[in-house]
């Protein structure tokens, strides 16, 4: 009888969990829909006074690179073509062991300058600062290996402008995306950070460092990630922005108020979730000091990135994300229900703890226990089927609502067949893929709890229109 009571209890927990999860996501969806409608109206109206470009804040774009000899030139050329009034590009060579430095020096005519380097944020030693003889707004910082956070901090130290845009050397920004991401800083001077959407570039036609034609990837794994990213960005992040509780700005594309980042101590070098950690720290600093501030997310400035297409790489990525989340929630536990922590400490943190961090545990254990119970005859297979049905329905509904958001706003994928493919993927991803990622996240959490160190390993990427090759991202430890 005890086992049966236990199983019954588990079923209730499982059911209540799904109902709560659904309710929270519906609330996020509503918030996202309101934001998207506002954005639609703004985009529809042609009669806004034009932007007076002299008032735009100049931006320092920081791109960290580690062993990027094959792609770095295209990436830098693409950055140089960005549509923006005044910006500088700072490439940080994070101790590459390949020909990255040589390629950069030869391609852009870099010459070493005696920079009076300021250690405003502590970093690994700088070997030299270079200026391009061809492009006055292009600089190169050569430093000892310190990983992505350290490289970004070095870039922030040498940045001249009040706003810094942190991106990856292997990501592709849309031409006008920087201008869009800077707009919140002009609209509201209390804005300290703004993040844009990351989309999957696999399958897209890339030319001259820009995505020229958007197409869906052929790899099923990449297709699943297209829907996953839509869900993650279109309501997973957009929904938090109106209540100023956005916790993640992707390391691949975010603009920050430089002095706020420096005051917070820059990127943390002791976590694999340094992008989320910085945002959480910015929140904590402002909330606890009760300073007015905004951290916003905009869905239309797009940065394209390449999704992993191998299970091993995807597993590493997902486990790293989960470890990063655990790090962040643990490092900033002071924010949980702190009287001054507002929506971040009272809504976002508990949500991330229950549904994002512990969620995979509940999902995996719940399904295992119910499957075991069915196997041993404590419940019938009908009940098992119902719970699997519930799990799939919730997952499909969340993906469907992300597709609806996409359809009512940006419509990046223009073909009708693309739409049908995405709808199919929204259903199919719940029949194995989602459970698989949950298991990876569950394992990552167990590893994190046991204190084992997370590693950044080389990720195989196909490259934008290139042959399969191994690229070691600057992020990978």
């Amino acid at each position, binding site marked *: 009888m005890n086992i049966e009571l236990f199983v019954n209890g588990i079923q209730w927990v499982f059911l209540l969990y799904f109902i709560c999860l659904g309710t929270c996501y519906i609330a996020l969806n509503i918030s996202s829909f309101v934001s998207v409608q506002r954005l639609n109206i703004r985009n*529809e109206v042609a*009669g806004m006074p034009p932007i007076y470009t002299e008032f735009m804040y100049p931006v320092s774009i920081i791109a960290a690179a580690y062993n990027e000899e094959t792609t770095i030139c295209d990436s830098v050329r693409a950055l140089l073509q960005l549509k923006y009034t005044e910006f500088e590009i700072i490439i940080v060579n994070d101790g590459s062991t390949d020909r990255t430095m040589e390629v950069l020096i030869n391609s852009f005519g870099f010459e070493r300058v005696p920079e009076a380097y300021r250690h405003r944020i502590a970093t690994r030693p700088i070997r030299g600062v270079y200026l391009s003889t061809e492009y006055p707004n292009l600089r190169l910082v050569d430093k000892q290996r310190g990983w992505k956070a350290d490289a970004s901090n070095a870039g922030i130290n040498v940045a001249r402008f009040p706003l810094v845009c942190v991106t990856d050397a292997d990501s592709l920004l849309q031409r006008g995306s920087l201008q869009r991401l800077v707009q919140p800083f002009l609209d509201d001077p209390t804005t300290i950070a703004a993040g844009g959407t990351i989309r999957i570039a696999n399958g897209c036609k890339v030319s001259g460092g820009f995505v020229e034609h958007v197409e869906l990837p052929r790899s099923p794994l990449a297709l699943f990630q297209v829907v996953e990213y839509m869900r993650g960005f279109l309501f997973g992040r957009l929904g938090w922005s109106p209540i100023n509780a956005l916790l993640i700005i992707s390391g691949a594309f975010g603009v920050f108020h430089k002095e706020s980042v420096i005051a917070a101590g820059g990127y943390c070098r002791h976590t694999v979730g340094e992008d989320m950690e910085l945002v959480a720290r910015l929140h904590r600093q402002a909330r606890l000091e009760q300073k007015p501030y905004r951290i916003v997310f905009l869905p239309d400035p797009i940065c394209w990135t390449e999704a992993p297409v191998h299970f091993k790489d995807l597993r590493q990525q997902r486990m790293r994300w989960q470890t990063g989340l655990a790090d962040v929630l643990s490092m900033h536990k002071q924010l949980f229900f702190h009287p001054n922590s507002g929506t971040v400490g009272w809504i976002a943190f508990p949500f991330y703890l229950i549904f994002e961090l512990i969620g995979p545990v509940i999902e995996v254990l719940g399904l295992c226990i119910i499957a075991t119970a069915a196997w041993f*005859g404590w419940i019938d297979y009908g009940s098992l089927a119902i719970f699997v049905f519930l799990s799939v329905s919730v997952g499909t509904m969340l993906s*469907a609502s992300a597709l*609806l958001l996409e359809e009512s706003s940006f419509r990046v994928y223009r073909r009708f067949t693309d739409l049908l493919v995405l709808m199919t993927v929204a259903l199919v991803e719940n029949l194995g893929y989602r459970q698989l990622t949950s298991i990876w996240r569950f394992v990552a959490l167990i590893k994190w709890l046991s204190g084992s160190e997370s590693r950044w390993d080389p990720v195989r990427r196909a490259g934008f229109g290139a042959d399969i090759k191994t690229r070691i991202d600057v992020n990978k430890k």
Partner: protein
Amino acid sequence: MICTTARVQALNSITGFEQVSHIALWTAQIILFTTLAIFTLIVLLRARLNFREERAAALISVWRPVLAAAAFSQGSTRSAVLPTVKKRDIVLFLRQWSAVQETVSGDASIRLNGLARRLQLDEVALKLLDHRRISMRLLATVVLGHMRVAEAWLPVWEDLDSQNTLVSLVSANALTQICPSRAIPELIARIPVRHDWPADRIASILAAADPHNSEEPFKSALLEATPNPQHTISLLKFVPIFASPSIDELVTKILINASDPSLIAACLRVLSNPAQLPFARKLVTHDEWYVRVLAIRFLGQTGTVDDTKRVVRALMDEEWWVRYRAAQALCHFPWIDLKGLRKIQQEQSDDFARDILEQAISEAKFE
């Protein structure tokens, strides 16, 4: 282990499994129907989009040559028979017409307005001002602004103080098109209190306005704002748009009387006249580094030989930015050549001063 159906049913009834399963089933069914509804909605939205795009393409194919002819040819369309705009296409047409208007100016804009009047778009837009959808009202405001419809002044004016930033900005833009002499003073008067108005958008309205309409109201607003440093700061950022000696004089007066470092910095940011040099010189030793850096920057832009010593002293400032701007200023002074810079560098006892000058000299070579 193989269980019998009877045993499972008995267990279910004892422990309430059935109850949980029923709730789960109902929840899953509701979610499933919601999902199917969302999928249907997505398909309908895409179908509607495709239909609209086809309609828009058809409209554009007919009207683009007519609009282009109206904008760029001298009066040739005045007597020409215009294609009809179907009632259901009127919003599409208004958008298309506005989009063309945004790209032209002067006579072309006037001719497009003539075409719009022939099509009685002003009447359509006036009616649209009462539409329940905000996007329609905004479109109407935009059209009425372009067409400079005087009758629209009052209803558009009511939107100027809307709490919705977008509505108030579109209204402000339209009002400055309808009657700039009335609208600009009202707009300027609101700048200090409308913290939600992005400065870049307001700047573009002020930059497009005739200085005759904007200079005096701006001066008055600046004078009125003087007792409140924050209000003054919010106006000061627009000073460079006017490039007016009388406004520069006013800025100098504000600077002389200012004690708030933020206000001093705001004044220094917009100084441009060499006559203001004496006031900037006094500030190179100010307590706040952000004041010092702006003062040094101004000296670098407009300073004289007499300022060299002041700037050289700033090379030893405790703040990196002050040192950097001082080094840049020295590199840009036309009376100091590379030899002179090296001499200054050698004379420095402070390592930071020597390093920063070395950096500035190296960077200057790339300019």
